[in-house]
C-alpha cells in the first residue's frame, strides 16, 4: 500500500537580506489515509512551512530547494500552476488557525460552500446546496437548513471553525492540513473540534496533518507524530511511544519541560539551551546578582520590621468585589446595568503564598488583576492590601505606596516593553520614579546586577527590546518588576506567549525569586497544568463568578464544583502517556 502523502528529503529555503535561510532541511514524512499525523515543535521549527509546501502555497520568496512530494502517485513537484491549483480543494485542503478571519465576511456560508463544491464537481446549485447542508449537519451545525444562509459574523468562534471544517471537507479531499486549528478556541470548544477531526479521519478515511505547538493536543488525538526543531525532524513515529518514551535528546528535553496536570515538579529539568549567544565579557564594575539580591532583601527586611504588628493579616483580601463595564455611560434617564465582568468575588492571600487564578476566556481573571493594580475601578466591594484598604485605580494617588509594592508581569513580552527605549532606560524608570537609588553610576550598577539576577548578560542594558527573543524579553520584564522592590507580584498569563521550553525556564525563575524574596504572587493562567506547578491554592472563575477556592493539591485530586471537574476533564493532557498500556 502506498502512503497517502510521501515527502522525501524536502528542503525549503527563504532568501533574506542576511543570506539564505533554510526553513526545512532534508525532511522525510509519510501520512496514511485515515491517519491523524501530528507535527509538533516550538516556534521556528518550520511546522507551518511544511503544510504550505505540501499545498503549494509557500509564502514568497520561499521555495522548495530539493526533495520529492508525492500525493498517492502524483508527483506534486511536476505539476504546473494550473494543475496544482485544480488539485487544491479537490485532493488537498486546509484549515487555518483563526476562524474569525478565515471566512469571507461579505458572503453567506451558502455562497462559500456552494461556490467551492461547484468549482470541483459538475453538480447543480441545488444539489450542491443539499450537499452543503449535509456537511454542516455532519460537522455539528444545528439547524443547518436555515443557518446556511447566515453570514460568518452570525456564528460563534467554535461554530465558525465547524463551518471552516465543512468548507475544507466539501470537496472530499484526501488530505487536510490543519494549521493550529484549535489554538484560538477555548478548551471546551477545542475538545469538541478535536473529537470532530478524529471522527472525520475515521469515517471518511481522510489523512490529516495536524500542526500544533500544543503537545497535549498531539497526545490526545494523533496516531503518529513528528517532532521538529529548526526545520529538522528530531523524532517520528507512533504518538504514544514517541512522547511516552522519547529517544531523541531534544524530545526528551521538550517532554520534561511540559507541565503535567497530574504531577507537581519542584523545578523543571532544563536541557534545552536558551538562545542567548551573547558571550561578551563587558560588565559594569561591581555589578553582580549577589549585589542585587542583597539590595532586594534589605528592603524586604525593612518591610517586615515595619509590618510586624500585621504579620498575621492577609497580604491581600478581596471582599465582594464587583466590576461592571458599561457600553454607554449610564445617563440621567437610562439605567444601564452594564456588563458584569466580576461579581461578588471574595478571597484572601497570605504573605508568601502563590495563588493561582484559573478560568476560560471571559471569566474575568484579567479584570481581577486590573482591579488590583488599579487599571480598572471596582463598581462595588473592596480590596485590602496589608490590611489597609486599597483605593480604586482612579482615586489611588500616583505616589501611593502600593504602586511600588504591587508589581505586574504581563502576558506578552513583545508588548510589555517599550520598543523605543533601551533596556537600561526601561529598568531605570522604576528606580528613578520610586526614588530607590540615586546617582547614575549607582543606578547603572543596580540595573546590571538585576539583569544578572534574572540570568541575563549585562550587555543587555545597552540594547533595545527588539534585539531579544520572547523568553529574554520576559526576563527583562521580570527584572523591571523586581527592581521596584515589590512584595507582591501580579502575573497575568506570564508564559502563555512563550514556547514550552522557555516557559519552563521562566517558571523556574519565578519560583526561585518567590522563594528567595518571600514574594506573594497572584498567578493568573488559563493553563491548569502550569498553575499546578506554581500555586499553593487555586481560585476558579467562570463568567465573572467565583466557582471554587481550594488548596492546589486537593483541587487537582478532587475538584468539588462541577465546572472545575469539567474544566479538568477537557484540558488536553499527557495522561495517556502515563497510563499503563
Amino acid at each position, binding site marked *: 500500500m502506498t502512503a497517502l502523502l510521501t515527502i522525501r528529503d524536502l528542503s525549503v529555503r527563504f532568501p533574506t537580506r542576511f543570506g539564505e535561510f533554510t526553513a526545512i532541511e532534508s525532511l522525510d514524512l509519510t501520512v496514511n489515509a485515515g491517519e491523524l499525523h501530528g507535527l509538533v515543535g516550538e516556534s521556528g521549527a518550520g511546522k507551518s512551512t511544511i503544510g504550505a509546501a505540501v499545498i503549494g502555497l509557500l509564502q514568497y520568496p520561499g521555495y522548495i530547494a530539493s526533495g520529492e512530494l508525492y500525493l498517492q502517485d502524483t508527483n506534486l513537484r511536476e505539476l504546473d500552476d494550473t494543475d496544482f491549483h485544480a488539485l487544491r480543494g479537490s485532493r488537498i485542503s486546509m484549515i487555518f488557525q483563526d476562524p474569525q*478571519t478565515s471566512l469571507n*465576511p461579505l458572503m453567506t456560508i451558502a455562497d462559500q460552500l456552494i461556490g467551492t463544491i461547484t468549482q470541483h464537481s459538475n453538480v447543480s446549485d441545488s444539489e450542491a446546496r443539499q450537499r452543503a447542508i449535509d456537511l454542516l449537519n455532519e460537522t455539528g451545525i444545528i439547524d443547518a437548513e436555515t443557518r446556511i444562509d447566515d453570514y460568518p459574523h452570525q456564528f460563534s468562534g467554535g461554530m465558525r471553525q465547524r463551518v471552516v471544517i465543512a468548507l475544507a471537507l466539501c470537496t472530499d479531499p484526501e488530505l487536510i492540513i490543519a494549521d493550529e486549528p484549535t489554538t484560538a478556541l477555548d478548551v471546551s470548544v477545542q475538545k469538541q473540534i478535536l473529537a470532530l477531526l478524529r471522527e472525520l479521519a475515521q469515517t471518511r478515511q481522510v489523512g490529516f496533518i495536524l500542526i500544533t505547538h500544543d503537545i497535549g493536543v498531539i497526545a490526545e488525538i494523533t496516531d503518529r507524530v513528528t517532532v521538529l526543531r529548526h526545520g529538522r525532524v528530531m523524532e517520528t513515529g507512533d504518538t504514544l511511544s514517541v512522547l511516552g518514551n522519547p529517544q531523541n535528546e531534544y524530545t526528551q528535553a521538550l517532554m520534561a519541560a511540559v507541565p503535567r496536570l497530574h504531577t507537581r515538579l519542584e523545578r523543571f529539568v532544563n536541557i534545552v539551551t536558551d538562545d542567548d549567544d551573547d558571550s561578551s565579557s563587558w560588565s559594569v564594575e561591581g555589578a553582580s546578582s549577589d549585589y542585587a539580591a542583597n539590595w532586594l532583601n534589605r528592603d524586604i527586611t525593612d518591610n517586615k520590621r515595619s509590618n510586624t504588628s500585621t504579620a498575621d493579616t492577609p497580604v491581600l483580601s478581596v471582599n465582594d468585589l464587583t466590576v461592571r463595564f458599561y457600553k454607554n455611560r449610564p445617563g440621567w434617564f437610562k439605567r444601564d446595568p452594564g456588563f458584569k465582568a466580576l461579581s461578588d468575588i471574595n478571597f484572601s492571600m497570605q504573605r508568601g503564598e502563590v495563588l493561582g487564578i484559573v478560568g476560560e476566556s471571559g471569566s474575568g481573571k484579567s479584570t481581577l488583576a486590573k482591579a488590583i493594580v488599579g487599571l480598572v475601578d471596582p463598581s462595588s466591594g473592596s480590596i485590602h492590601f496589608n490590611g489597609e484598604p486599597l483605593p480604586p485605580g482612579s482615586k489611588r494617588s500616583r505616589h501611593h505606596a502600593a504602586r511600588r509594592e504591587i508589581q505586574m508581569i504581563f502576558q506578552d513580552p513583545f508588548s510589555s516593553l517599550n520598543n523605543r527605549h533601551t533596556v537600561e532606560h526601561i529598568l531605570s524608570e522604576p528606580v528613578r520614579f520610586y526614588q530607590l537609588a540615586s546617582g547614575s553610576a549607582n543606578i547603572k550598577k543596580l540595573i546590571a546586577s538585576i539583569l544578572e539576577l534574572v540570568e541575563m548578560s549585562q550587555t543587555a542594558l545597552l540594547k533595545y527590546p527588539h534585539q531579544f527573543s520572547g523568553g529574554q524579553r520576559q526576563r527583562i520584564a521580570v527584572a523591571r518588576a523586581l527592581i521596584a522592590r515589590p512584595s507582591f507580584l501580579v502575573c497575568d498569563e506570564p508564559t502563555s506567549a512563550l514556547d514550552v521550553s522557555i516557559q519552563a525556564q521562566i517558571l523556574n525563575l519565578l519560583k526561585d525569586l518567590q522563594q528567595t524574596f518571600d514574594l506573594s504572587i497572584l498567578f493568573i493562567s488559563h493553563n491548569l497544568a502550569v498553575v499546578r506547578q506554581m500555586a499553593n491554592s487555586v481560585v476558579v472563575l467562570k463568567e465573572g463568578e467565583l466557582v471554587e477556592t481550594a488548596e492546589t493539591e486537593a483541587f487537582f485530586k478532587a475538584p468539588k464544583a462541577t465546572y472545575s471537574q469539567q474544566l479538568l476533564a477537557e484540558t488536553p493532557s499527557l495522561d495517556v502517556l502515563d497510563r499503563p498500556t
Partner: protein
Amino acid sequence: MLRFISRRLLQSVFVMLAVSLLAFVLFRFVGDPIAQMVGQETSIEDQERLRDSMGLNDPVITQYTRFVTNLVTGEFGYSYRTRQPIGEMILDRMPATLELGAVSLLISLIVGIPAGIYTALRRDGFIANSLLIVTLIGVSVPTFVIGIFLIYVFGVQLGWLPTFGRGDVVALGWWKTGFLTLDSLRSLLLPALTLGIYQLTLTMRLVRSEMQEVLKTDYIKFATARGINKRTLHFNHALRNTLVPVVTIIGLQFGGIIAFSIVTESVYQWPGMGLLFLDSIRYVDIPVMSVYLVLIALMFVIINLIVDLLYFVIDPRVRLSSRGGSH
C-alpha cells in the same frame, strides 16, 4: 433600518446646524455688513436706521434664528458686490458645476477602478508599473498645471478644443445643460479631463491598496487553498470586500471634485459655483461665501447619507447588527 436612518439624519441636522452657525458668525461678524452696503457719504444716523431695520441690533440668538429660517426658506440675501439675490446667482451657476463634476467623477471611476484592480493583481508587469508611474505624476502635478498644459496643447497649439466657457448651452427650465450640443460637449471635455485626472489617480491608488490588503487576508488564502478559480477569487471574493471602503471614498471624492472644480473653473473660466466662490473670496463678498459654505455642506451631508445607505446594502455586518444581532 429605520432607526439607523433616523440616527444618521439627526447627525446630519446637527452638522448642518454647526455649519450654519459658522456661516452666521462669518456673515455677521466678519467685516461690518453695513459698511459694505453703504457708501462713505451715508450719515451715521442713516446707517443706524439701516442697522435697525435689518435687525442687526436684535439679540444674537434672534438674528441666528432668522438667519437659519431664511436659509431654510430659500431667502439667501444679496451679494455685496453685484447686489443680486444670491439664490439666483447660485441657481444660475449650479448646473455648470454639477455637470462638470458628474462627468469627471464618471471618468475617474470608469478608468480608476479597473486600473486599480489591474495593478493590484499584476504587481510587477510592465503595464502595471507604467500605470503606477502615471498615478505618481497624477497626484504630484497640480490640477491647474494639468489644465494649463491641456489648454496649451489642445487649445493653443492644435486648436482642436475650446479653452474657456461652456459653449452653447440649452436651457431646460432654469437648468442650463451642456450635454445637448456638440459645442458645449466639446467645451466640457478639457475641464472634465483636468478635474478627472487627479480623482482618477486617487481612485486607482485606493482600489489598488485595498485590493492588495484583501488579497493578503486569511479568507482569500483559505479560498485559494480550496482551489477556487482565480477569476472567481479575484472578482467575486476579493472585489466585493475591496469595494466596501471604496464606496466611502467615492463619497469623499465627490467632495474633492467640488473643491477642485474651483481651480478648474478658474483655469477654464467655467461659469460655475466655484468661480463665484473664488470671486467672493477675492472681493470679500461675505454673504456669498457663507451661503456657498452652507450649500456645499448640505451637498456633503446628502452624499454621506447616500454612502451610509450604500454601506447598508453592501455590508451584511452593518445591515444585520442594526437589526439587532442574532448570535
